[in-house]
């Protein structure tokens, strides 16, 4: 359990990650949950914008843009890296 904890905003386009934990309390969890992002879900990173912009992910067959502040609350681990 002493590995470095990584968040969604640090991931690059093409990586497939599994959600380990969502932080930020009731509001944050509810918001992410209702957009289909839950612990143990698989998420594909589509784009990671420049200038501290949002992260675009694909989840359950749809695309969702997360502002950086939101992405920082989603702890993930990489499952595979697509060659794109």
């Amino acid at each position: 359990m002493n590995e470095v904890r990584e968040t969604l905003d640090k991931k690059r386009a093409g990586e497939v990650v599994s959600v380990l934990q969502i932080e930020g309390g009731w509001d944050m969890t509810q918001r992410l949950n209702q957009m289909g992002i839950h612990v143990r879900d698989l998420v594909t990173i589509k784009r990671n914008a420049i200038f501290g912009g949002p992260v675009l992910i694909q989840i359950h067959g749809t695309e969702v843009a997360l502002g950086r502040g939101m992405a920082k609350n989603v702890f993930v681990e990489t499952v595979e890296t697509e060659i794109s």
Partner: protein
Amino acid sequence: MNKQNKNQTDILFSGSDPEEKIHSRMVLVGQPNSGKSTIYNEVAGYKSVASNFPGATISYTQGHVNIAGETFDIVDLPGIYSLTSLDPAATETQRFLLTRQVDMIINVLDASILSRSLELTLQLMDLEIPMVLCLNMTDEAERKGIRIDIKKLSDELGIPVVTTVASQGRGVDDLFKTALNALKKPKKAKHIPGNRDVEEVLEGLIQKISDKAQNRLQISRHLLATKLLEADSYFLDMVDRGFPEIQSDLEEAAQTLAYTHGKPAHEVINAERHALCMSLFEKVATLHKPHVQFKDRVDDILMHPFLGYLSLGLILFIFFSLVFAFGGKLEAPILDIFEKFKEFASAPLPESSLASILLKSMIDGLAGGVAIVLPYLLPFLMGLSILEDIGYLPRVAFLMDAFMHRIGLHGTAVIPAVLGYGCNVPAVLATQVLASPRDRFIAAMVSTMVPCAARMTIIFGLVGAIFGGSAAFAVYGLNLFVIAVSGAILSRLLPEDTPGMLLSIPVYQFPRPASVLKKTWFRIKEFVVIALPFLVAGSLILTLAEVYSLNGWINHLLRPVTWLLGLPSEVGLTLIFGVFRKELSMVMLFQALGTRDVAAVLSSGQIWVFTVFVVFYVPCVATIAALGKQIGSRATLKVVGFTFFLALLLGIAVRVIASVLS
């Protein structure tokens, strides 16, 4: 019950009083962008604004639908992701479902996002109201390679399921026939049990809800128990007021769940529901190879870190160029028609009689709206509707997110800001898509500073006409700069504690002409209905003030402002009219100065000062009303005060610069 609270929210309601209703009521509920409004429009006429942007419906729309000779009330509710009070739109929908008479729920789902959409479905089933499931956009699901076994889904849930492609009108008739049948012979939705230990805790809590409490709260026990464990403020408040006895049982149940699952009860409930949806999805859907289409590749350019911004600039440039070109072409000929009409209409009346003067001023007022504003507003709103229906706006939000953070907002706020270029009223109302009150306040403030079509005509009619197009664009540049600085200052004063952007990016759609036209009409109607009467009345009042020499008095009252700005005192009155409708300030300026050739009467510096002041000072009456509704009267007062002093400051600055330069 909080029926007594409904008056506060009823301002947003366009429907009639629930007590008066005689028909059964069907309600469209679904996640944002699932096609509810399209279905509504298909059956009830174009009163609801369908768009390809999540959270487009901010207030609900009510109409009638005729099925097999029987009339039903039909309501299109704002899209919600779940039955949880997280933002105003969701609270609105939740309140409606829980406190108003609903005889049938038509749950509209985007079939291509079935697993996520089912989460709302399961919560709606808890309401224990007859329900039909409408799997919309099945063509898109098919394209994504998702095939859904309708019969199995219907069996699993215990409610009828209908497939539709609402954008092509397919299956909508069938949907309402099914709804009618389901209303006649209501079937109870199945309860889909989850994990045993969670079910036990829920069941335990349900047992504690007494009949008396249930009667008082008028809500299904299962829903109440679930929502209480989810710590939803709406239900907690309800219990606080009407059923405080449950508090200790609730705490105990929540602790049990948290203890056995190692996470807070609300997360346990959510995870449970998610697991149910995933297993349902796996039971009813099979995955095939998706058809990759051109539209899947478009985002490689439009959301590209470099090409994306280039495209955005290009698209906006083309968009505004077309708007200006179209508006410019129409403005002069329409004005000509009004001039001819004015001569013709006033010919039988004696020259310089009061009747003749009043008639002429009335026609002038009408001309101001129809010839000066409408030619620009119309193509703007139409173009925006097309961009919206295509689904481009969420991409703009994605691209602009990082920049919007500099002014204390995030990407989602780009939508109200862009709408503001057409008219500030829909822009202020659109701030509802933002979750936190602080974001809504800043976004509303920023939106009112965006020069709307009316102010555009002033910028182009004065600075643009006299100093050329680049001067007009300089005003826009200055405006953007001032907005950025004001936003940055505001965000310092109100530190950011907001969750930031979380936006579903929809699939591109071809815009449908009918939808675009109706949407444009819907938005332009507000201008025609509210603005034109103001224009005509304003024109009349100004003329009357002149005839009875009241303008001297008003101008005298406003002398401090005009003196500070170095403007002639006759201008004072036009500033008052600008508050009624922005474009009035220019029309009235012509009238007050007695000429359209402003450059002959005012110096270049004065024209600049006037334009800059009018662009920034105090939102128009209609916008102030919208602000009051959206952010409250105190915050509105702040916006009015802030913009007034900002405009005064900028006006003085421009005056000083102009006097140094000349």
